């Protein structure tokens, strides 16, 4: 088992290195001389030379890359070109906001998606299955920023039920925080709930056709017992992995949701950085997200090994 986990961890290393190369080369895509972007209005050759030297732009690419990796490895993602605040500080400030949004969205997606998927599999061929399928496809097709706009128009403007935008920290006022985050989290959860429903449905269908389910039925286990104790327990395994993979979708969706509801999170940080041409921040955020995703994947696989008896005892 430990060898299995160790091997899985080793495979993550080349992926991490490649991700760092991709993120590093992003800045090389910038059209024109990056020094001119850094210098802003400044055109004094002495200043430009100083900047070139400071950012090691005269060094060959591999040297630049290794210097950058060394810096990043010590936890230094550089400073915002705009505000001179360290990128890590900015990320540390914004991340909790997005994590709260993501956690709430994941919660809604789980409580809607999984029961709907089970129901669709059990009621195969019945109107319920068609209904659930159409609902899932609609959930995947609806642009979440548009759904956000419509909800704000109806719930906040017409009915005046929930705040339309902003963010309140849960430590400040827990209920108000939940209230402001409710609509964004619902909007963010639609596509996720749809994916979860579809995957639960197909995993359940597969499990319900398996031999052990037939055996359970033959020995007289109740229909409910078969579904919950035998089929669902096995079907949930691939879903655990899926949930961690959907982490990336959540972050990407959060970019748009935060924009619509003006939530000062991770997504808003990237978009504002893009418009301020604050490339250090964009680069830092992309790197942070990718590393987070690789670690989540790694954890999912380790978890999979730990809970799967066949792998645990190998």
């Amino acid at each position, binding site marked *: 088992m430990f060898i299995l986990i160790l091997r899985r961890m080793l495979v993550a290393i080349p992926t991490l290195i490649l991700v760092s190369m991709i993120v590093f080369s992003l800045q090389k895509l910038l059209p024109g001389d990056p020094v001119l972007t850094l210098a802003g209005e400044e055109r004094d050759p002495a200043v430009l030379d100083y900047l070139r030297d400071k950012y090691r732009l005269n060094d060959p690419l591999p040297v630049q890359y290794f210097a950058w990796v060394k810096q990043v490895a010590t936890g230094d993602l550089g400073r915002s070109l705009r505000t001179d605040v360290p990128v890590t500080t900015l990320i540390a400030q914004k991340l909790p906001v997005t994590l709260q949004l993501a956690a709430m969205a994941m919660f809604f997606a789980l409580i809607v998606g999984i029961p709907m998927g089970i129901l669709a599999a059990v009621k195969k061929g019945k109107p319920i299955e068609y209904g659930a399928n159409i609902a899932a496809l609609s959930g995947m097709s609806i*642009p979440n920023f548009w759904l956000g706009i419509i909800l704000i128009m109806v719930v906040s403007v017409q009915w005046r039920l929930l705040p339309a935008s902003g963010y309140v920290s849960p430590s400040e006022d827990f209920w108000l925080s939940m209230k402001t985050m409710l609509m964004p989290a619902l909007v963010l959860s639609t596509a996720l709930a749809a994916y979860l429903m579809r995957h639960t449905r197909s995993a359940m269908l597969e499990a319900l056709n398996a031999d052990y389910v037939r055996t359970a039925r033959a020995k007289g286990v109740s229909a409910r017992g078969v579904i919950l104790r035998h089929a669902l327990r096995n079907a949930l395994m691939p879903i655990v992995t899926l949930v961690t993979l959907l982490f*990336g979708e959540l972050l990407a969706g959060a970019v748009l949701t935060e924009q619509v509801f003006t939530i000062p999170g991770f997504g808003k940080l*990237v*978009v504002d950085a893009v418009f301020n041409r604050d*490339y250090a921040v964009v680069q830092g955020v992309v790197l942070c997200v*990718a590393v987070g995703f690789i670690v989540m*994947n790694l954890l999912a696989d380790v978890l999979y090994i730990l809970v799967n008896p066949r792998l645990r005892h190998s």
Partner: protein
Amino acid sequence: MTVSQAAPMPVAPRNKHRAWNKFKHNRIAMAGAGLVLLFVLLAILAPLIATHGPFDTSFTTIRKAPSMAHWLGTDELGRDVFSRLVYGARASLLVGLVSVVIALAVGVPFGLMAGYFGGWTDSAISRFTEALLAIPFLILAIALAAFLGPSLINAMVAIGVSAAPKFIRLTRGQVLSVKNEDFVQSARALGASDTRIIIMHVLPNVVPPLIVQATITIATAIIAEASLSFLGLGLQPPNPSWGSMLNTAKNFMTQAPWMSIFPGSAIFLVVLGFNLLGDGLRDALDPRQDR
């Protein structure tokens, strides 16, 4: 004896007919095809269907509600929302199509190489794919669009490149599953070159799942384009795009709700159309899904 005689193509014409028959009787899939067709016609016939010019501004018709003169109302510059919507279909479908072509052009050759040659080539391509997949689709597209500069072409490149890893993975998996089949082995035994085996014997087996994935990716790409344009990183104003229409519309939510309602509905319907079509194609083309 020629190679093609010795190595029968596994995709028999009979199967193609069966797939078409299955697809034809799937009412939901046909509805999807209908929706897609409707938007394709709107895009092609835009100049004939639009009631006004998409750029025609007018001070007298600023933010007017839907009426006989302006079926879906007007925007903040007095432009006709219906006409901009019709022209906007062009940007959406074009981005959807071109970015999927880019994703296929990048993804399929690499996937074929990784699956067919295995070993070192496979490891290198697979690790690179994993690295690209580690960066969420939209975040990679936003970063690329940001660094390349905002424009429709850069949005297509960004979306296409971000979607490519999925095609590499899919192609590689399919190749692995047919590589050791008898018909490939016999072609090799008869001395067919790698290129010939890949193109004549392996590729045809990869095509059906690729069609399904491409259809679904068009849906994803259209949403991605709308998202980029919504953020201001796609098609630049004053050109009509559904995403950028929503971007301005969100500032007039209370005064002019029609500015938001219609472009969003258009995105929803066309994406739903491609998703329904993709699901139907999967049911028809992939016999393993039969349950």
